[in-house]
């Protein structure tokens, strides 16, 4: 009931009710999001754990069961290949967008707008369409057949825009003072770029790379049509289908062999673990560098007021990439 006579009035109760309702609703929203996520993780664990054998990690897949060794190695190889190919191209692209594109006007707005827009368009491009293009052009058109090479190319195309975006963002967060200081000291453009700018943006770049890898390892649709699937690792880049984990989850959960059902959940668990590792490592990189960088906090303080973004950069979200 009303406590003070000054604020007493019919609207106060309504406002109090609406405020409390609002608070409750936001908590409910949070729970509605967290609960299915937690349920998902628990469910994957619960289905995989009862039949889990550590031998799954080092046994090959057989027609009646076996393990997932080659599939795990295959996923890791795909990630490594994407890291090298898409990493190089993406980081270079990000450098171009952040550093090298000359502003056309004196507006101060960075240029390279057209190239950035086109790069951004690719971030939301449907993966199945890229898979179809890969199938038509590389697998069938160039007669490579289902192959590692086709899969790497398509995955890289998918992931390069993400890496370019995070690289550009990290480079933009390097204070201009650093660049100006480097130039004042007489460093050549390349030298300054390498020794000063890239070095300070490195944590952000690496985080972006790790998060892009997390996206790449979870893809299924484009891989089905470029890598096919195989129980064992092939010996060549082309004309041989390639193993990876996500297909196991897609195709084996209701396969005729019961052992395959367990393998499907094992594969799901391993995928979740890989993604978790990548996310945790990227968080650690960022928090460690924040501690040492200027303006970083070494101890967390809880405040009720919203935090302002740090000058040396907010931790990058995986979610930032998907935007």
């Amino acid at each position: 009931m009303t406590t003070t006579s000054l604020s007493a009035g019919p609207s106060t109760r309504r406002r109090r009710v609406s405020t409390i309702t609002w608070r409750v609703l936001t908590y409910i929203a949070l729970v509605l999001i967290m609960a299915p996520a937690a349920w998902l993780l628990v469910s994957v664990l619960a289905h995989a754990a009862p039949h889990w054998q550590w031998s799954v990690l080092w046994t090959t897949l057989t027609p009646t069961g076996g393990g997932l060794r080659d599939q795990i190695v295959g996923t890791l190889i795909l990630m490594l290949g994407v890291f090298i190919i898409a990493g190089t191209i993406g980081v270079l692209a990000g450098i171009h967008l952040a550093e090298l594109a000359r502003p056309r006007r004196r507006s101060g707005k960075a240029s390279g707008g057209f190239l950035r827009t086109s790069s951004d368009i690719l971030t939301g491009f449907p993966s199945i369409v890229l898979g179809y293009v890969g199938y038509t052009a590389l697998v069938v058109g160039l007669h490579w057949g289902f192959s590692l090479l086709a899969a790497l190319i398509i995955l890289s195309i998918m992931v390069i825009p993400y890496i370019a975006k995070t690289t550009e963002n990290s480079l933009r967060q390097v204070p201009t003072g650093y660049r100006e200081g480097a130039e004042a000291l007489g460093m050549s453009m390349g030298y300054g770029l390498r020794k000063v700018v890239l070095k300070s943006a490195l944590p952000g770049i690496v985080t972006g790379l790790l998060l892009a890898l997390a996206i790449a390892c979870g893809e299924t649709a484009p891989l089905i049509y470029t890598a096919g699937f195989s129980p064992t690792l092939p010996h060549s880049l082309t004309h041989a289908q390639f193993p990876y984990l996500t297909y196991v989850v897609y195709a084996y959960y209701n396969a005729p062999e019961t052992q395959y059902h367990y393998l499907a959940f094992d594969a799901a668990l391993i995928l979740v673990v890989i993604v978790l590792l990548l996310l945790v490592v990227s968080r650690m990189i960022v928090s460690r560098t924040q501690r040492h960088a200027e303006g970083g906090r070494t101890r967390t303080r809880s405040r009720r007021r919203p935090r302002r973004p740090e000058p040396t950069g907010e931790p990058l979200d995986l979610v930032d990439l998907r935007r």
Partner: protein
Amino acid sequence: MKTLMRATRLKRGAIVTAVAGLALSSVVISSAASASAKLPKSGVETPSGGTVTETGSTLMYPLFNLWAGGYNTKFPSSTIQTAATGSGTGISEAENGTIAIGASDAYLSPSVVSANPDLKNIPTAISAQMVAYNVPGVLSHLKLSGKLVSEIYQGQVTKWNASQIASANPGVTLPNIPIVALHRSDSSGDTFIFTQYLSKADPSGWGAKVGYNTTVPWPAAPGALGENGNSGMVSGCKATPGCIAYIGISYLTQTLQAGLAYSALGNGKGQYVVPTQTSIAAEAAGFVKKTPANGTISLIYGNINNGYPIVNYEYAIVSTHQSSTSTAKNIRSVLEWAINSKYGNSSSYLSQVNFQPLPSKVVAQSLKQILSIQ
């Protein structure tokens, strides 16, 4: 003068004979060369070693898995890599050349044959298909005619206790639950043979409106669901009371374990036949004489006494023009092993999946096709 003419005639004769002899021998030699694949006494060539990739029919997948194990025991240097992706994929990937052997329950369509003259469908075994259902309380073989199944899948019969079903099955208590018709969402040979059965049994209804293919425009029956693969059909039917689904006979054990029952289907003579070894073999036997050299024939809905109506050849879709002689040898070896009644076509493998062996005439025809793979 006469001597000279005789000598000339003799010379001419000798030349003609020599030329004829050369021509004949060259014909003999070349024909021996074109039938270059020589079958050893065992009937199976030794492979060059390596992996032979197979993909396609989920109906044939359990058998190919068994074959892969047996083949690898006989030839340890060779492996068969199998996958269950659907007959449509088997045909497509064989067309593309991305895999070596495509397994399909469906023979090639004329358009595919004309676009790929090198592609062959080679019968390797005889299989069948059941129509299974999940009707609580009913574990017997319901008598369903082809026309009735067609009406169910068109959404014209919607409850299990409908009069059409009840009148064909007196004495069976049918619950009042809706029928959920399951179909295959992937491009499937099972769909092909099932819809061929419906088209032949109900030509004016299903045949005119829908037809048969590996993918068809399924009529909008209430609650109809698409499932992926034969195992998807089994698990989907298990999870959906009231469902009816067409499932390959190689999944009989799983079907029964899932608590489903399968029907006695109406055949061309109007009899209701349960799929058994005898009924499947009877249906197949009725078509042996008519099977052409290229293996393209439908064994469905024959006018055969006590023959089960949904029976088909399992085809290996292979191109006769392979990229290398060793690949061709590997493929030939696998297929020769598969159709040989001592090895792949023996009852030790086939009985595990409820298939029937190929009749000897068809074996000879398949062998001829296999030997043409170069």
